[in-house]
Structures are given as C-alpha cells and as structure tokens.
C-alpha cells in the first residue's frame, strides 16, 4: 500500500462531513475520557490533524469475543469513528468482510507493508499444551500465528483478562495450557488492558492515546495503563461511605440492598480490584456491577477465577466498623490479593498528574502521595 495515500484522522473526519466544531468537541470528549487537563487539548487536536491512520491487526485466540463486543459499545469515541476514521482495522475476524485465504493475505501484507509500525491487538490467549492444537486458524496453531504476527509489531495491546492474565480457560486446572500474551511474547511492549471484558471507553481510550500522543501509555508494574487501572474500585466507589459507616447488604433484596449499602459482606472484590468501573462506569456511564446491586467479582485481577467463591467475603478480614479503619482493611485486602506496595502507591496517583507527564514524558513528575495506611 502506498503510504503517501494515508490520510490524517482529521482529514478523514473532514472528508466524512465532520465539521471543525464537531471535531473539537470530539477531541475534548476524548481528553476528558483520558483524564487530561484542558491545556492538553491543543496537543490532541494537533496530533489528530497530522497523524496517519495506524494499521491494527486484531487476532482472536481462545476467547469469547466479549472484548470485541465491548469495543463496539464505545460511546466516545463511537466505534464508527475509531475503525473507519482513526485507525485502520485491517484484520479482525469478527468484523472483516474477507474470509479464509483472503484474510490471511491481508495479515501478511500488513506485516510486510507496515513492518514495525502496526499495532497487534490480541483478544484471547494461546493454548500451549499438545503443540497448540486446541486453537487453529487456517490449519495453523494460534500460538504460531501470534508469535509470527508479534515479530514485526510496533506494540501489542492485550485486550481483556484472557490476553492479559489468562482468564477463564486459564483457571484451574487450565486444561489447554492457555497462557496470556506476556507469557509467550517477551521482546515487544505489551499493554495489558484487563477486565472481562474491559470497559469500552477504556479500550478506545488506550488506542486513541497511542494515536494522539504517538507514544505508549504509562504502565504500572503489571503492564496496565495507569490512567485506567491506577486505583482500586473501592477507593472511588460511591458506596464507600456505607463501608466506612459499617452499613452492609446482608442478604439479597434486604433493606440494605434497597438502600444501596456496601456489598463487601456479599463478597465484593472492589477493595482488591484495580479498574475504572466506579469512575468511567459501563455503557456510557449507565451503571457498574456494584451500582446494580451485585458485588464486583474482580474480573480485571490476575487469577480472579481461582480467588472464589465469589459470594464469600474475603476471609480473615475484620468486618469494618468503628474499631477498624477502612484503609487498614483495604491494606490487608491488597496484601491478600498479592498486589505489592508499588502498585498500591500508584493507586494514589491523581489522574491529572499522569496527564501532565504524558507528552514526551517531559512534564513535571509528581511524587505519589503517600497512603496513610503505609505509615502503620
């Protein structure tokens, strides 16, 4: 493909009848999604006006396609803008028109024409047992195809808990030897975007960040973008006040559930789960699991399927109340979930701080605020 014919995102948007005002509104909404300050807006606008559309090869391994389904629910930006105006979604078995040999030709062509410049998005993971026969595409193992496609990728986006952590097929006893991308590919930057599935606007937010700033997002030690996985759901949960007050749902459909009290005693994993559910929320902010009366099952955390049963309150945790501070409980939970202090500290990054640091990493770096619980 002739690279001279590539258009910038803005030029394509303009060709599509999007006027300047709508374009700026779109950039503003995108900045808000990523938690960026208003002063960052000119930079976004500039990037969108000049950058070509990045090719994306989106592979599917052992998975359930919930990540793709989530992705197409994105409200800002809407999917149409992402896949037709902002990126070039060149290979995606779920949406592409071509099949069979014709899609294999596309994959090969993009790998050649855009060597080192395409983004590899991976949904699902690879079975590694028995030579990988538990997932084949075009007569080849997904394991092979993943390795081959990763070789010349600029970076890899590991969608969802399957690609990031292993998810359900990786749960005990992991019959197919399913392993996440990070266990298979070691020589490429991998952005883990966990969740089952991840929130739609988190998915489009990660991709548009890369496009806009021409750099990969800042990651925590688990390879997750700090901008979306920097804090525990519990830290920002609107029911946190009930936790602090010791007011809990004790049974389904009880008085506490009618009043929207804390779901911790029903097994809520919000205190040990890093995700944006309680801030970005789901499906354009309509709700999130806790907001609709069900405990968080911790779907963005490593090995969450084997940390059940889901409705059992995490054991050996004191029931919060007047004798126990929430932060102490939170600290214990974090320890139990195997999340280190570094990640815990990262949770106290204010979102605007990461915004300041983004362009080229030259901005002022704020020292993370110390967590009160760490002093104990």
């Amino acid at each position, binding site marked *: 493909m002739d690279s001279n014919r590539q258009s910038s995102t803005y030029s394509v948007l303009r060709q599509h009848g999007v006027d300047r005002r709508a374009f700026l509104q779109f950039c503003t909404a995108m900045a808000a999604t990523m938690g960026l300050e208003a002063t960052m807006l000119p930079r976004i606008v500039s990037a969108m006006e000049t950058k070509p559309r990045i090719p994306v090869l989106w592979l599917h391994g052992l998975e359930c396609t919930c990540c793709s389904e989530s992705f197409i629910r994105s409200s800002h930006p809407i999917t149409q803008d992402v896949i037709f105006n902002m990126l070039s979604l060149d290979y995606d078995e779920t949406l592409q*028109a071509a099949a069979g040999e014709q899609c294999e030709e596309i994959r090969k062509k993009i790998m050649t024409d855009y060597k080192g410049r395409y983004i590899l998005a991976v949904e699902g993971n690879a079975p590694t047992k028995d030579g990988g026969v538990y997932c084949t595409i075009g007569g080849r193992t997904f394991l092979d195809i993943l390795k081959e496609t990763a070789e010349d990728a600029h970076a890899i986006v590991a969608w969802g808990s399957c690609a990031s952590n292993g998810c359900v097929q990786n749960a005990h006893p992991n019959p197919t030897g399913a392993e996440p991308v990070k266990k298979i590919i070691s020589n490429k930057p991998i952005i883990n975007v966990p969740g089952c599935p991840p929130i*739609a606007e988190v998915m489009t937010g990660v991709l548009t960040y890369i496009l806009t700033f021409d750099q990969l997002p800042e990651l925590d030690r688990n390879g997750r973008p700090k901008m979306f996985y920097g804090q525990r759901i519990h830290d920002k949960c609107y029911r946190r006040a009930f936790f602090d007050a010791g007011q809990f749902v004790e049974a389904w459909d009880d008085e506490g559930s009618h009043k929207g009290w804390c779901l911790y005693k029903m097994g809520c994993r919000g205190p040990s789960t890093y995700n944006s559910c309680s801030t970005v929320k789901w499906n354009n902010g309509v709700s999130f699991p806790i907001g609709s009366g069900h405990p968080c099952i911790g779907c963005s955390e490593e090995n969450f399927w084997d940390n059940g049963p889901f409705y059992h309150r995490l054991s050996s945790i004191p029931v919060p109340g007047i004798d126990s501070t929430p932060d102490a409980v939170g600290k214990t939970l974090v320890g139990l979930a195997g999340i280190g202090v570094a990640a815990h500290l990262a949770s106290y990054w204010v979102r605007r701080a990461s915004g300041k640091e983004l362009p080229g990493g030259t901005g002022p770096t704020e020292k993370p605020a110390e967590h009160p619980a760490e002093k104990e």
Partner: protein
Amino acid sequence: MSKRVVVDPVTRIEGHLRIEAMLDDTNHVHDAMSSGTMWRGIEVILQGRDPRDAWAFTERICGVCTTVHALASVRAVENALGIQVPPNADVIRNIMFLTQYVQDHVIHFYHLHALDWVDVVSALKADPAATSALAQKVSPKWGLSSPAYFSDIAGTVKKFVESGQLGIFQNAYWGHPAYKLPPEANLMAVAHYLEALKWQKEIIKIHTVFGGKNPHPNYLVGGVPSAIALQSDNAINMERLNLIRDLIPRAIDIVENLYLPDLLAVASFYPEWTKIGGGLGNYMAYGDLPQNGIGDISKFRIPRGVILNKNLAEVLPVDLIDPGQVQEGIAHSWYQYPAGQTALHPYDGVTEPNYTGPQPPYDQLDETKAYSWLKTPRWKGNAMEVGPLSRMLVGFASGRTDYKDVVMEALGQLKVGPEALFSTLGRTAARGLETRLCAHWLQDEFDQLITNLKNGDSTTADTRYWSPETWKPESKGYGFTEAPRGALCHWIQIKDKKIANYQIVVPSTWNASPRDAKGQLGAYESALLGTPMADPKRPLEILRTIHSFDPCLACASHVIGPDGEKLAEIIVR
C-alpha cells in the same frame, strides 16, 4: 474431478470455524465438512466449584451471546436446589433476554451477515437522489432518507475507498457475480450498517441497568441482583425504569422501520436463495420466556417442540431429561468414549479429548476420520437444526397466531409460499421476523413489571435456599433457554455443596456438528449441499449459508466432562 474449497477462518462469526466443501464438475457443493477448531474446557474448570458461581464461568463461554449461559446456569442450579424465583425475577430475566435478542439479531444482520449480500464498493456508483427515493419507498417511516443524507454517506464511502486504507472491507468479494443489489440498495445498506452500529450500544443499556454492565451482566441464583425500591435513590427506581422505558420504543422503531424493511428489500433481489441452503429439514426449540414460572411450558411465549422432515402438521414434544432423546456421539470428533459406547445422554456422558487430526500446519482434514472439536448431538437419532428458523417454524406449526401473522405478512410481501422458509434466505428472514415479535414482547414484559410494582410486588430474590447449609447432600438439575442461536441446556450435579458434574449442549454444537456414526451430516454441512459457486476461489456463497445460522463456535466447542477428575488427569498429563 472433485475440487475442495477450504474456508478457514470463517469470519464475521464468533469463534473459530473451518469449512471444507467438495465441489462437483459444475461447481456445486456435493459434500461438506464443518470443523470447530478451538476448545477451552470450561466444564472441566467448573468441577468442584460453588454452584452459585457457575453462571459467571459459563457466561464467559460466549461474549456475543452474553447472558444466555448465565441464564441457563442459574436455572439449572435453581432446578437442582428446588428454587422457584419470584415473578419479578422472571420478568426482569425476560427483559434482559429480549434485549439480547433484539440487539444481537440486529448486529448479526447488519454487521455479520449483510456483507454477504451487499457490495460496499458498488455503493460508489449510487445516485444519492435515487437512493433517497428507494429508501423512502422501502421504509416511509424511517426519517433519515433525504438525498443530502445519502449524499453524505456516498461521500464517506468514496473518500474511505480513495484513502487506500480499506480496513475491514479490504480484499473482500466486491464485484463478485453473486452480488445482485443495485448500487442504490447497496448505498442504503451501507448507511444502515452505520446507523445500526450507533444504535446497538444504546439498547444494551437495559442490561447495564439490571446487570451493571454489558457484555457479561450479572445474574444471581434465586432471582436478580438488582433490588427494586421505588422510594430509594440507590436501587431500581423511577429514573432507572424511565431509562428503559425510553429505549424500548426506539428499539421497536429500528426493528420495524430499519431492519425489517431492509431485510425484505434485500431478500427481494435474491429469490434463488429461497431454494438454496435448506439442509436437514428437522427443527427443534426448547422454548422460553416463561409467563407463569419456568415449570409451566404451556405458558411460554416461545413454544417448545420438534418438527421432522419439514412436516408442519405435527409438532413433537421434547423432554430434556429423557435419556433416550438428547444424546451425543463422537464418531467424527476429537474425543474418545469407553469401549462399546457410541451415544450418551448428557447426564451419563463421558468425554476424553483425543486429538487425532493432522499436526498443524495442515492443508485439509479427512472426512472419513475425526475432524472437529465439536461433538455430535442428536435428538432421537436425528440431526437437528436449532435457532430462529426452528423457533419460528415451531411457533407457526403450533398454531400460534402471533407467529403466523408475522410469517404470512412477510411471505405475502415477498410473494412466496411457506416452503421458501426452508432455505438460507428463510433462515435469515426468520431471524428478522422473530426480532419483530421480540421487540414488541420487550414492551409487554416491561409493562408487566410496572403492573407487578403497581400491585405492590417488588420482590426480586428468593433467598431461602441461598445458604449451602440448606442444600441436600446430593441433587441434580437442568436449566434450558433459547439462546439467539438456538436451543441451549445446562445439566448440573451438586454433591457436598460443590459442582460434581456440569454439562452443556449448545445451539452451535447442534448446527455445526460433524457427521454422526450413521453418516448423517450436521446442519451446516447439510445446508451447503447443492450450493452453486460462481467462483470457488471467492467462497461468497458458502459464507451466505453458514452466516444464515449465525455461528458461535466459542459456545459450540466446549467439553462435556461428567467425570471431571478423570478428565483433568488425562488432559493435564
């Protein structure tokens, strides 16, 4: 000489499917193989876990048919534990069920299936004014149909194509002789592809209200997790109900004035496809949408039954726990049974994976040997088709006037008889007609919820058997539903408060199964027989028929592991 056409991956589906079709001298398919090429082992993973968690695991079998496995799972556990959920729980589950149908069927038509009939590049030649006239004729009530609107869309397509980066539309079958739509119809369809993409994220918010998120909303054994408290600002209240109330009329509008008119308009250009792709002629539905509890099959909105050999004069009963009815074989699957066993009911099934296919990379599979990760379910020995066509036919043949009315109206508009339903196009049309019923039922179920609340019933869960302390030492149960893609059932055995056995037979296993020991083809395989191919290197016709089933291979290719420990040993080794 026989030619073999391999389509792998089959795209615009869920999961990994391979089709091999053998062509005769005139390029007609005379034999076909359907192979599921992925396997995850979810049932093995469920062994020994808390039955109340099973919905979350099984829901992750599929994110396209999200909710359906969760629903079947909570019903199976409730059946085992003797729980009857409160009426509001059934109504809310029905609302979520119908939301899923309407959203999923619309996505299937526009985003997974339409490109089999619609030539995107041909849309470049369309005249916007003529397209506007066509659109207003096809659907007078659909507002977005001005010449300026289509002019914008035409400009979008033109610039997109000229950009040289065709994304999901590249290297496809544009210009293929099997495409028959005039440019204006193609442009209209492209515009509606985009409209439907924008809308689908709205209707699904109903799941978010009750289940907290979509995909994969939350379910609960014993009821639904979202409490209703009209005097609270922190539960299902008037604001939440209004959010839903506003989404339903828009869904009806989309179905009545976008989806159905487009479906009938496209169908009218492909009359030959009412004679291709019929396949087995055996249809099965388990039924769903309870109006008086899941135990009262007679009050389901979607009726249960079997039709054999296209005989619409007789609807046969289905019993999911009769060991002689649903059975699974493995004659052409990568599994093994103990000596002497050939077909087993799910309660008695045995599964040991045993990959005997060619070592990858391979060029072709062998139809005389095992060639799929799917097993071979049969009903009383018959290969069955499940899905929208089966449900519409069972409803029609059961004498239901609501079913008959929508079917006869559509057949009348297309000027074809009921025999046209037994085809690829019939399958595609049945999905649209079913969506029409579902969109209106969605309103009915919502009204029922309001009626219950007016009558003072806001109960959403029965917690009497929530605690495992209340359970018998051993119990077993089954939970069925009609997934968008067809009949689905989960069977569970609970022992000492844990899952002792969990088994699932899903719609795409029925439809995509390989041939059985008697040589009976599966539904996909059978439906491909006789299909003419204009250009075997560009397998558009195969995609049409396979897509008419709406394949879901993550669902289909699981393992049924009744003896979990043994199975785990074998696999882990």
